[in-house]
């Protein structure tokens, strides 16, 4: 039995069921019997069926998991890696939470510099990377390509800091 495989298969089965239940109440299109529920229902059932197959296979297989990729032999996880995984995974969320408040110019150096620092422990390089990359992105995307990146607390200075 492969517990991980079983869990993933179960997750997909659950997703299939959710899709079927969630779309069951949709009204059919005028003039025919089908509607927007048809395709999700089909997809949901196929997903459940395939997930059941995957689950069956997981139960039958020996418990030895094959590594995701041969070039990265499984190594024991240490605390540093778990922290690193967590901060990399959370970084986009932190950006979404902070950017509207602090603005792009303040949030991005924290994210990029912070990640590099947690990964390497080299303070100077991390700060430089954070500031340099932020300046680069700001110039290319905000000033030249005019993507409206958030200003946050710096809103009042936006007029002064925008090139025309």
């Amino acid at each position: 039995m492969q517990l991980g495989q079983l869990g993933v298969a179960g997750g997909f089965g659950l997703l299939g069921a959710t899709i079927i239940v969630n779309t069951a109440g949709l009204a059919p299109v005028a003039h025919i019997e089908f509607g927007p529920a048809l395709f999700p229902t089909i997809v949901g059932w196929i997903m459940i069926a395939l997930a059941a197959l995957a689950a069956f296979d997981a139960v039958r297989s020996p418990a030895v998991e094959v590594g995701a990729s041969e070039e990265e032999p499984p190594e024991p996880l240490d605390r540093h890696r778990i922290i690193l995984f967590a901060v990399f995974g959370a970084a986009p969320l932190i950006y979404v939470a902070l950017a509207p408040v602090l603005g792009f110019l303040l949030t991005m150096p924290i994210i990029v510099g912070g990640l590099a620092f947690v990964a390497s422990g080299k303070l100077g390089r991390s700060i430089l990377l954070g500031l340099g990359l932020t300046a680069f992105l700001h110039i290319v995307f905000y000033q030249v390509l005019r993507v409206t990146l958030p200003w946050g607390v710096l809103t009042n200075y936006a007029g002064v800091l925008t090139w025309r």
Partner: protein
Amino acid sequence: MKSVNLFGAGIVLAVSLAALMPAMAQEWPDRPITLIAPAGAGGGTDATARLLALGLEQQLGQPVNVVNQGQGGGVVGFTSITTAEPDGYTLGVIYNFAHYSPMGQGDFDAADMTPIGQFNFDPAGFHVRTESEWANITEALDAIKADPGAYDIACGGGCGGSWPLAFASLLDAYDVDLSQVRMISGQGAAAALQEMVAGGFDVVPSSVPEAGSLIESGLVRGLAVFGSERLEAFPDIPTLEEETGMVLELGAWRGLVGPAGLPEEVTAKLAAALEAVYNDPEFQSAMTDRGFGLRWRDAADFGTFMAEEETSVRELVRVLGL
């Protein structure tokens, strides 16, 4: 390497110094303005928004950045406009929107916006295949009235959009049983016209310039335009009034709005700027060159117009069962 680092640090220092400078207390606008277009990049609404932004930039002296939010058929963009801070720094170029709310797609109506002015109107056109049996619009309307379920009518995009609702209003005025009419949604007017040429639809209501290239190549005919006058670029297509005697003006419009509760001085300044842009011959020729019709409604008229349209569209959506 060292000198590069120093250079980087210098930039950083300069940026932080600039940030520390006290904001110059000025009147609106003292920073860039965001102009939301509830449509994808490259489409008609995007084009008008960019032409408008260029004009407003010259009038207001601040960059006006067009932001495309076309997700969910525009619902996302409209929601951003109506829920933005009413400080005059987030505005929107909008189009016929009254169907979103009764169709349950979005939660906003005319009362959530501050009207500034309407600058565009494109009458709908009634397009059929060249080999269609209908010689004119009266024949077409009579045929649809006689057997409303027999014909396939393209909505272009969603069936609540400007073109299908203009078409439905016409049928309603012609006393056709709307509940029987087959309106079929799709991926935009261009795709619907292509589908019609391939034999899929009987009628595609859309703006005339959108069908222009297919009309020129002899694959599509325009039976009528739903406006008060013939279009300059398509003088052969008669108006609805000439053919049927019905006085209807139906189609798509575009206007400039802000979120509800925009300060009065901002609204006034914006309205003046918009009117100046509208009257600029350069803007006018840029619009006509690209096939966009010009129509002016000032803030008050535009507000009344939106409110009226909301009432009539709600009724149509109900009858059509969308």
